């Protein structure tokens, strides 16, 4: 096993008594781009929270290399997590700080360096994501895509060994989403040793960036393998997912409305 492989061993996870993931066994290979794929509410973000150590598993473990994340002592756990960068769904930028201050936060909090040097480091990564001109803007002055790119800049400023992205293209138009995919690919070219884990349900993104795919379904791992293997899989659910076909259970749209409601609605619409 490589030092920055991420392995789930019999991982079960949930919130209180509600179990979201059951008995997940998979390895996300170090130095590759892995995409965790699955329908809405299938536990992708929950799995990501376990890799970061923000939630504890109900049973089983998450191993980074050969280290079980949840049995490490506090100092070791912090040392491992320090090497992780996370892009949250909406960027999770601190509203009270400018973009440059947000991006520089990991450095300004942990390193004793002169301010101009830290700002220069922040501007460097902002340049990488094309946001240098917005360094002194605040998060609420930016679009969703820009906030995500800024979140990505903050995630990579400390040169992480594992970069985790939670739905980096959700809510973006196709052009901005494609740009985000390109950004992730070029990020991986820039840091080839970095393990990149992307949580997504965006098929275009999957095809653009994935080396390895883990598909979640009904709280379990439905598939783990390369993108080529996924495309060739005969599994009906995977084929349905990849072809964006609707589920078998047809929605019954033709429900007769209650006549009283219908009549009241008609009166209101005509008024």
């Amino acid at each position: 096993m490589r030092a920055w492989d991420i392995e789930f061993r019999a991982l079960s996870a949930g919130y209180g008594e509600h179990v979201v993931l059951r008995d997940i066994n998979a390895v996300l290979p170090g130095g590759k781009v892995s995409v965790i794929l699955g329908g809405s509410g299938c536990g992708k973000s929950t799995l990501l929270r376990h890799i970061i150590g923000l939630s504890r598993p109900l049973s089983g473990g998450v191993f980074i290399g050969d280290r079980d994340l949840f049995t490490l002592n506090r100092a070791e756990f912090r040392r491992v997590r320090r090497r992780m960068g996370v892009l949250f769904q909406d960027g999770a930028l601190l509203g009270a700080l400018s973009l440059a201050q947000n991006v520089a936060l990991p450095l300004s909090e942990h390193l004793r360096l002169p301010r101009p040097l830290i700002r220069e480091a922040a501007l460097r990564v902002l340049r990488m994501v094309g946001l240098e001109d917005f360094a002194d803007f605040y998060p609420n002055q930016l679009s969703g895509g820009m906030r995500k790119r800024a979140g990505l800049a903050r995630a990579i400023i400390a040169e992480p060994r594992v970069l985790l992205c939670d739905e980096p293209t959700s809510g973006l138009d196709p052009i901005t989403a494609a740009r985000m995919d390109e950004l992730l690919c070029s990020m991986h070219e820039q840091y080839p040793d970095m393990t990149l884990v992307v949580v997504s349900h965006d098929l275009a993104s999957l095809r653009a960036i994935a080396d390895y795919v883990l598909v979640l379904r009904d709280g379990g791992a439905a598939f783990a393998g390369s993108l080529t293997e996924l495309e060739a899989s005969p599994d009906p659910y995977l084929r349905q997912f990849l072809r964006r076909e609707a589920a078998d259970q047809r929605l019954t749209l033709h429900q007769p409305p209650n006549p009283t409601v219908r009549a009241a609605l008609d009166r209101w619409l005509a008024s």
Partner: protein
Amino acid sequence: MAVDQRNSGPGFLRLLGRPCLRGIDAVGNMTLFLLEGLRQIFTSARIFPRTLQQMYVIGYKSLFVILLIGIFCGMVLGLQGYYTLVQFGSVGMLGSAVSLTLIRELGPVLTAIMLTGRAGSSMAAEIGVMRITDQIDALDVMDINSMAYLVSPRLLAALISFPLLTAIFDVIGIIGGYLTGVLMLGINEGAYFYRIASSVTMTDVAGGFVKSVVFGLLVTAVCCRQGYYTHLRRDSVGPEAVGNATTSAVVISCVLILAADYVLTSFLL
């Protein structure tokens, strides 16, 4: 045969016990939260710049409302005090009545309640929004202690700002009493200030400060905690949870201020 101990016993005991246990649990969690926040004051490397920023928010931005409430409170005390004391022929005592009421009781309590509404609610809402938008998780992931970053500076700022604002409230209140008592109702100016100087002791002033420090800690800890654990609320999620957390923060703070005031007054008298 095995008996389920949890469900045995009369129903009313269970009904009584559950909220009691929940209350004890909440007090315990609150105390741990406060202690952790205070501990981080001594371990956090960059506490002072953030504390200054929070002093601006809690202290400076609340100054105007404290001045406003202080002057009207003093004026009302002067007015009420005058018409009560005049019945006993002792209007000369107005200075004592106004100053002692303000310094011992109304100053610390009203300042704390105003700061709860002005600064405490915004603390709860700001931290709550940070929680539901993953900003606190982001801090943790960046290995930045979110308690040290968010809570400790506010606690330290409150420890400094609450007594200062209370002192300002007291002084402005006494001036308010002067406006009504001396300028409007014609009490002798010398008698007003002489009575203040002769009746107010350092014990009164220190007692008022002790109260304001305790209130500052309580208000800040309650408001920060409500925001910090917004995501664990059982009654709501998302933005609604932030609203409920803010309401709870204000209500709990106000009740605790008055309860703590009674306890402290019992000890200080």
